[in-house]
């Protein structure tokens, strides 16, 4: 993945951020998860079409309107009786042309658009974009801004995981955790509302730092929230983690090996549940994450149950980070010295952060004007969705719903 040779040598010179990247595959080299082939040939993803169905084979459409596909996703399943032989995802029902819009907006004007992509975790989107533009401008946000950013982003991570848990449990049949997680998520949304005025599409950060100071009582409220939510996470675990029905529905369902995950480009909790200890917050720290002490949970088998456990532990680790951050917010300015009209020098930058769903990356090409020449978003859900086909082969139809839920996709991000 790193030794990309391009014809244009000038391009590689510009990519300072890609020079000393640690190799994700190096994390498994020498361990039992290492596999000799990192290519996709064995997955047979581009097999020629078989136009003639066997007598038992059936093609079923899980339409764009479906209570379980978390948005407008169309999945075409090829079944042999009850077993899934292959899938094809048809996306684009929520395509809004965000990347093209970016070419006609200034950098500051584009900031609210990024919230709408992964609308569940809007703060992370904003963080990634602002940091990418800051990198392009070669400015650093001040530490106080970074701490505020970390607190809000980690709160966002908890909120996103809570929504994931509620909807995933609902798909598998447990109706009640949905209500519990949404009730607890309200507290986070209240903090967001008090901070920046919006609950869902927050537009919390600006290029160069934060616009808003923390409101009076911010630290107290965040600390109260930490005390409030820790037993709630225990409540969710009590309902599901050792429940035999939950175990039977999620263990060995949708397994993906570490090698396949790396080869497909899967990131985030899905990758970590397959055993790869890769988290951008630790690997390429940004926004003062290196100041905090937290752990990266990894799973063993790469099945749905491991992904569930990884996200539950991540929620608790986020609580740890927030606690450390809120206890030590430094004083200082919240905005770096950024020119009024943002006109970065020509060049290109790729910056990625660890969004709740995986690696969210922004590749911005600037031609020296106030509007980007090209802005490409690397959405984690889009890349993770490729793994659906691999995970679901050989599983039963009822598992497809569970696997779509466990990948934690948001169609706003997949389609942009």
């Amino acid at each position, binding site marked *: 993945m790193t030794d990309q040779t391009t014809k244009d040598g000038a391009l590689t010179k510009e990519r300072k951020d890609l020079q000393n990247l640690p190799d994700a595959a190096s994390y498994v080299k020498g361990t039992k998860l290492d596999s000799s082939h990192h290519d996709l040939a064995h997955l047979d993803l581009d097999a020629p079409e078989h136009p003639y169905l066997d007598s038992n084979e059936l093609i079923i459409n899980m339409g764009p309107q479906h209570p379980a596909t978390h948005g407008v996703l169309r999945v075409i399943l090829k079944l042999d009786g009850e077993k899934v032989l292959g899938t094809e995802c048809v996306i684009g029902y929520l395509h809004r042309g965000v990347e093209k819009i970016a070419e006609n907006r200034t950098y500051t004007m584009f900031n609210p658009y990024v919230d709408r992509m992964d609308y569940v975790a809007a703060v992370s989107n904003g963080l990634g974009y602002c940091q990418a533009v800051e990198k392009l401008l070669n400015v650093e946000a001040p530490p106080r801004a970074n701490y505020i950013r970390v607190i809000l982003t980690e709160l966002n991570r908890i909120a996103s995981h809570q929504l994931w848990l509620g909807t995933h449990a609902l798909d598998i049949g447990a109706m009640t955790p949905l209500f519990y997680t949404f009730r607890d998520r309200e507290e986070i949304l209240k903090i967001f509302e008090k901070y920046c005025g919006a609950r869902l599409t927050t537009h919390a950060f600006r290029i160069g730092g934060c616009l808003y100071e923390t409101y009076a009582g911010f630290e107290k409220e965040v600390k109260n929230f930490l005390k409030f939510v820790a037993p709630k996470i225990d409540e969710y675990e009590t309902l599901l983690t050792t429940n035999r*029905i939950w175990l039977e529905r999620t263990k060995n369902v949708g397994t993906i090996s570490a090698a396949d995950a790396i080869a497909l480009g899967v990131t985030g909790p899905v990758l970590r549940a397959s055993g790869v200890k890769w988290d951008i917050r630790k690997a390429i720290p940004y926004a003062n994450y290196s100041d905090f002490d937290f752990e990266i949970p990894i799973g063993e088998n790469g099945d749905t149950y491991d992904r569930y456990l990884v996200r539950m532990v991540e929620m608790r680790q986020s609580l740890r980070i927030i606690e450390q951050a809120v206890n030590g917010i430094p004083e200082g300015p919240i905005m770096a010295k950024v020119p009024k009209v943002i006109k970065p020098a020509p060049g290109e930058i790729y910056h990625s952060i660890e969004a709740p769903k995986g690696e969210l990356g922004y590749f911005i090409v600037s031609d020296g004007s106030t509007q980007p020449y090209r802005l490409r978003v690397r959405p984690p859900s889009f890349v993770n969705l490729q793994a659906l086909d691999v995970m679901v082969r050989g599983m039963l139809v009822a598992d497809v719903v569970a696997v779509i839920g466990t990948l934690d996709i948001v169609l706003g991000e997949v389609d942009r």
Partner: protein
Amino acid sequence: MLNALTSYLGSPVTPGQAGNQLWALIYVLIIFAGVSIAVMAMNWLERKALAHFQIRLGPMRVGPHGLLQPIADALKLMLKEDIIPSEADKTVFWIAPLIGLVAAFTVYTVIPFGPSQAVSDMNIGILFMLGVSSLGVLGIVTAGWASNSHYPLIGALRSSAQMVSYEVAMGLAVVSAILMTSLNTAGTGTLSMIGIVQAQQQQGVWFLFKFFPLGFVAFIIFAIAMVAETNRAPFDLAEAESELTAGFHTEYSGLRWSLFMLAEYAAMIAVSAIAVTLWLGGWMRPFPNLLNAPAWEFVFSLFPGLTFAALAGFAFLGTARMPSHSFFRIQRIGLGVFALLLAFLALVLFVIAIAGRNTDTSLAAHTREGIDYVYWFMLKVAIFMYLFIWYRATWPRYRFDQLMKIGWKVMLPISLGVLILTAIVGVLIP
């Protein structure tokens, strides 16, 4: 007239036994009305209890605390357009819900609410119940077929396969309970429902606790199988919304759909009644042998009145807590009237309990006895109903192959084992 009433209330046999058609007809009508009201109450309870489990309130607007919601739902369903798929088989489409309904309601002829409070005490009572509830499967199969659509058919076949699989385990659990009835002094068991409860009475122990843990395991097997039998969570894959194959009642709308729901709830109450009769002592009050002083009799006979008094108290509390805004005036009045009704019922029950406290042959005594029997029976069945709702709120649902695996590979061997062990223990222990 009063004499006739006394003789009927105090008769030691059921109307079917006595050959009394009028009284049997009256019992049938009472049961029909009672089950319908119970199904509506169960609908209300499910929505409210499920909502409270999910930290929300449930219906609050239609009548105070949603008490009139089932009526509103029934009205709405009756007034809906009756859509029949164009290619569907009209005759079969029409009779499918009726088959399920008839099967669910026929079971109630043998359910014993008391030693003579049943429509008829067939001496193959339990066999009759198992048979008729297996006819309910036909209703589902024909409903799926008549819809002339791929998904309801597959859903119907799955539902019926599930019901048939769990009937086997259910039957074996029932057989091990029947075995226990033969361990009395006469040496012969009985298949009649009233006879089973009387056997428990005679042996002085609920079959739940007999040969512990054998009776208990058999009861657990039956309790799980009856949830699968009625297609309730966690075995409700065939009718869940988020699965690909929609349920067998997809194409049914309006009144026909409500008939299916009626049949489902009635079946739930019926299988709970079987469980209560076989293992939980039917109409017997707790500790009839341990606490058998007349004072204890009196105390336990106050329970019906106390229950209604408690319900009236809750209703009064709700009235007091209602906001005193003019918008809530009618609801407040309605809830107050309901509370008064419950309090009046409690008063009547107290009067009967006190007037009939001696065990003589007066009308009051017979009435009190009858009410006590029915009350304890209904209380135990109500506990099961609440458990059904609790299961639905808490657990995810099983995948279909896991469900069938459990039915055949786990429940069947365990119930066979319990049966054999019960037989062995029953022979060895005199």
